[in-house]
């Protein structure tokens, strides 16, 4: 499958992002190896092994409570803040274990941005919301911040709507705008991977469509993993799809193929709406 390579146009190589990793475009960005996860005594994920392609949208589908979000939160190690959790196996980001001793959770989360189910802007101005990550990580001097904020807001397709009121509180925006603000906030860190945990479930159809169009643009420069309950959404926006069921990854593959010719009968039952 060469989709990941095709998706990166040649001129994209001149953008600053690609200068950092010029040779990595063909390798998978995330490599999951026999990963299992427990909340206390309850096992939530079982022996996951798959790879997430670079510069593509990967959708994770499945019924509620099947471990999709738990997996997502394993990648940026948000789960480790919950007492009593443990894991076995490994998750590699750019070939390096996210759990390795040298991997600082703070540095990891700079490389792996996250967008949540509910839009959660900080009670600060639009500008400050976007500048939050770069300021913390000292990615740019303060005088370059306006440029960086504008770039992130443009990438999130929000710039034109907010450019005249960057000092307005982020919470004054509509739900769909808030979610794009949260996407801009994540992008301002210039992550390699963007994790999205049901980013459209709190939005109306029009706002959902904006986000979906945005995903198609963003995959030119980012690797996106999106958890969704909406199978139409998965089939519309994703290049690859993984079906989770009861903590197992039942099937993973090309989206078109998974939705038209699923190999597992549970996948077929789920995508045809027989359960879930």
């Amino acid at each position, binding site marked *: 499958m060469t989709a990941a390579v095709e998706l990166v146009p040649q001129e994209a190589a001149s953008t600053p992002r690609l200068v950092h990793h010029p040779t990595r475009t063909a390798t998978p960005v995330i490599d999951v190896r026999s990963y299992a996860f427990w909340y206390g005594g309850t096992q939530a994920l079982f022996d996951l092994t798959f790879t997430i392609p670079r510069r593509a949208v990967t959708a994770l589908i499945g019924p509620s409570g099947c471990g999709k979000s738990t997996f997502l939160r394993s990648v940026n190690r948000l789960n480790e803040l919950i007492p009593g959790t443990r894991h076995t196996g490994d998750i590699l980001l750019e070939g390096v274990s996210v759990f390795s001793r040298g991997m600082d959770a703070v540095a990891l989360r700079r490389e792996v941005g*996250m967008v949540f189910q509910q839009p*959660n802007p900080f009670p*600060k101005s639009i500008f400050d919301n976007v500048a939050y990550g770069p300021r913390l990580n000292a990615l740019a001097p303060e005088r370059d911040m306006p440029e960086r904020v504008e770039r992130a807001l443009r990438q999130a397709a929000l710039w034109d709507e907010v450019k005249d009121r960057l000092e307005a509180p982020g919470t004054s925006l509509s739900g769909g705008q808030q979610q794009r603000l949260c996407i801009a906030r*994540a992008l301002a*860190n210039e992550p390699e991977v963007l994790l999205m945990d049901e980013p459209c479930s709190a939005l109306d159809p029009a706002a959902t469509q904006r986000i979906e169009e945005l995903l198609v643009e963003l995959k030119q420069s980012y690797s996106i993993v999106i958890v969704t309950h909406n199978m139409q959404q998965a089939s519309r926006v994703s290049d690859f799809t993984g079906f989770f069921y009861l903590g197992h990854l039942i099937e993973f593959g090309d989206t078109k193929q998974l939705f038209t010719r699923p190999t597992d009968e549970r996948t077929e039952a789920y995508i045809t709406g027989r359960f879930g």
Partner: protein
Amino acid sequence: MSGRSLRRHVTSGLMTGLVAALSFTAVLALVLILGDLIAKGASSLNWDFFTKNPVPTGQTGGGVANAIVGTGVIVGLAALFGLPVGVGTGLYLAEYGSGRLGWVVRFVADVLNGTPSIVIGIFAWTWLVRPMKGYSALAGSAALAALMVPMIARTTEEMVRLVPHSLREAALALGYPRWRTSLRVVARTALAGIVTGCLVGVARIAGETAPLIFTALGNQNFTTNITQPMQTLPHQIYEYATGPFEEWHRLAWASALVLMGLVLLLGVTARWAIRQRHGAAR
């Protein structure tokens, strides 16, 4: 209208009337107290009352400048000691207090919260006044601070807990270390609530009398020396109100009005702080 619907309407009307009457009773108490204070105290308020010190027994005139300044100094010092400790403890309890240590701290705070202030006063006397060989404003501040810490800690904890978890996760997911998330995102978001809790706490201790009797003692003269006994408004009211002279009673009413005014001012400031905050950030 069917019988059932009629009964629902009647019940609804009765209950609404009942809670309205109860609310009225609650407000009535405050209105009566304030009204009585104004009626009996306002006529004694004048420039001298705020600027002069008490005159010797038997003479008329004079004021309570020493007590007003004393209250300011002692409550101010108590806030200086108590607020950082209280807010810090509350932040710890809310953000990291899920373990056994948190349980112990929370339990101790609740017990301290329920401890009568006169008991705190006795302890302040035992541990501060006696070793220091004398009553002092400092000991009074320490006693008030001890009263205030558990109160502030618990309200701060409640306010910090109100901050949505999603905001914490947003900061953590951007790469914020946990302690910075606590300070920069969580505490700042809860700031309006924390400030309100602090002001209410300060207002609450500003009216305390019992612990000051054992510590700051009271002083007929003006002083700002915190190692000496110092007069405060509650103590002044206590002395004047229990005294035999009409002039003293008059001054006690006026002092009570001033104290009440100070407490109300703190309350209004707290309200205003919340509104400013909400206007700017919500």
